[in-house]
């Protein structure tokens, strides 16, 4: 049973970010990390290895050459090998183009489970996993609080409106998991040393059989403008007053805005 975990390198959460003149993220001087939500997918995959259910874990990423660093960090947590798809034609790729590329790489890797985080920290559309499933012609099991594999099928425990469901599909599948799978493990010093010797393959679009022309410049969408949010009035503060006084003033504030 083979798992491929797709990971994305993103700017560190909370880092001071800005756009370049053509509205791409300016990565200069911004610390890059594994998308924090992908770490839960890594953790879920490694749990399945620990349980003797998965035989191998491969990491797959699409990004600039520097994304190899994220793959090395993932390998330090565990797993066997990694693949980086990098190509000049992919700068500014949107969700659609990313899905085309990941699906082509996954066709080559042919895992039983292609596992992803539930969203990326920077884009937050959660659109890539389902689009990859569509491109691969596979079922999608999404937002799993837990993933199990048995008898040729994958199951996720997913929150429903009023409880939770177990949803099942026959392998192979594309699956995503949430932060409820448990805190990601830390890379040990031994793991960091071992990661340096694990295979990391770098592939171009040609290597995975994707014609750059088919990617239509890497995106079907474009940002046309960016501006600061509407200036909000400064925060009003109520402090150093008794609870009853605070309550009266909050109620006045709500009433002035017709909220009560």
């Amino acid at each position: 049973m083979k798992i491929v975990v797709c990971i994305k390198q993103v700017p560190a959460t909370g880092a001071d970010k800005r756009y370049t003149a053509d509205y791409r993220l300016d990565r200069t001087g911004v610390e890059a990390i594994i998308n924090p939500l992908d770490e839960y997918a890594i953790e879920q995959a490694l749990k399945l290895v620990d349980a003797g259910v998965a035989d191998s874990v491969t990491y797959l990423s699409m990004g600039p050459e520097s994304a190899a660093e994220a793959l090395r960090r993932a390998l330090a947590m565990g797993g066997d090998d990694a693949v980086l798809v990098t190509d000049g034609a992919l700068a500014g790729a949107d969700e659609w183009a990313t899905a085309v590329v990941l699906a082509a790489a996954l066709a080559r890797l042919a895992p039983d489970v292609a596992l992803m985080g539930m969203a990326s920290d920077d884009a937050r559309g959660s659109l890539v996993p389902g689009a990859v499933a569509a491109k691969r012609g596979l079922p999608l099991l999404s937002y799993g609080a837990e993933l199990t594999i048995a008898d040729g099928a994958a199951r996720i425990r997913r929150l429903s409106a009023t409880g939770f469901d177990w949803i099942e599909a026959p392998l192979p599948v594309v699956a995503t998991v949430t932060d409820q799978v448990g805190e990601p493990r830390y890379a040990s010093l031994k793991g960091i040393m071992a990661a340096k010797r694990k295979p990391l393959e770098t592939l171009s679009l040609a290597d995975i059989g994707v014609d750059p022309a088919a990617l239509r410049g890497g995106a079907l969408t474009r940002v046309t403008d960016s501006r600061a949010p509407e200036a909000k009035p400064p925060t009003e503060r109520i402090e150093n007053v008794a609870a009853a006084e605070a309550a009266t003033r909050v109620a006045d504030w709500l009433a002035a805005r017709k909220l009560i």
Partner: protein
Amino acid sequence: MSDILFLAEFSAGRPARSALELATGAAELAAASAGSAVGLAYGSGAAAGAAALGAQGAARVVLLGDEDRPAVTYAGALAAAVRDTGGLALLAPATPNGRDLAAALVGLLDLPAFGPVRAVRVAGGAVETEQATLQGSAITTSRPVDGAPTPAVVLVLPNTFTPAEDGSGTADVSTAGASDASPFARAKVVESHEADARVANLDEATVIVAGGRGTGGDAGFALLRDLAAVLGGAVGASRAAADAGWIEYQLQIGQTGKVVKPQLYIGAGISGAIQHRVGMQTAEHVVAINRDPDAPIGEFADLYVVGDLFQIVPALTEEIRRRKGS
């Protein structure tokens, strides 16, 4: 091809609030694009309720199926229906189900996708969207590239549109063709478990009272429930409170929980970490109650009350109850 499509989810026999919001939004956009609002309805109750979406401005509704099954399993039928109807844009709710279906469509039909957006309009014959990006520090406007396939798929945050209530129209309902043989239909619910009956649907709430670590547990949340009740709202939580087991994960707001956009958000004992903030930053009015005068939530709250929530929340509940005369 200037129709505006929208996903209309039904469950437990009635339309989700998102279906009413998006019907209203699609009708608004359709007026600007000289087209019609066309619903794509699925889930239990869709067959009986589809025509009534006309009240929110839907001219037509295509019924994908009336069964209560994972939304993504309707992806094949949805793609076939969208291929038939065409359209300028497809509005999908920025919920897990809406995202799953939107994502499947993007892959199946090679469509441009946007979201989650806080505004969408038709300008110059194409859709134009507004998104909060860079963790709320920028608002970006986006459009499809020239010559991009249509419809553009747009994930829409809850409460971006207010459901029209005075309409009396009836939508023409048609049924989507052939049964669904797509790979997406291989996913099946094999077990269903009901959780606590207190779980309200945060997507439908226009007032949310959320609690965090500072609530300390059940006693704190009981106070928040009283306040939510008197405001006619729902209770939500930060991840810390959900992880502590004080409240159900269905009520978690933030990056890995719900993204909400209520008229009024009151956060009590919530520090306002970025992971929580991305789930509620588009709320119209934000009130924070916190003992810490320097919590991050103070940077983006409209009203910041520094003090003990165990005293202030019950006092506020009592004050509002008194003013409402009940």
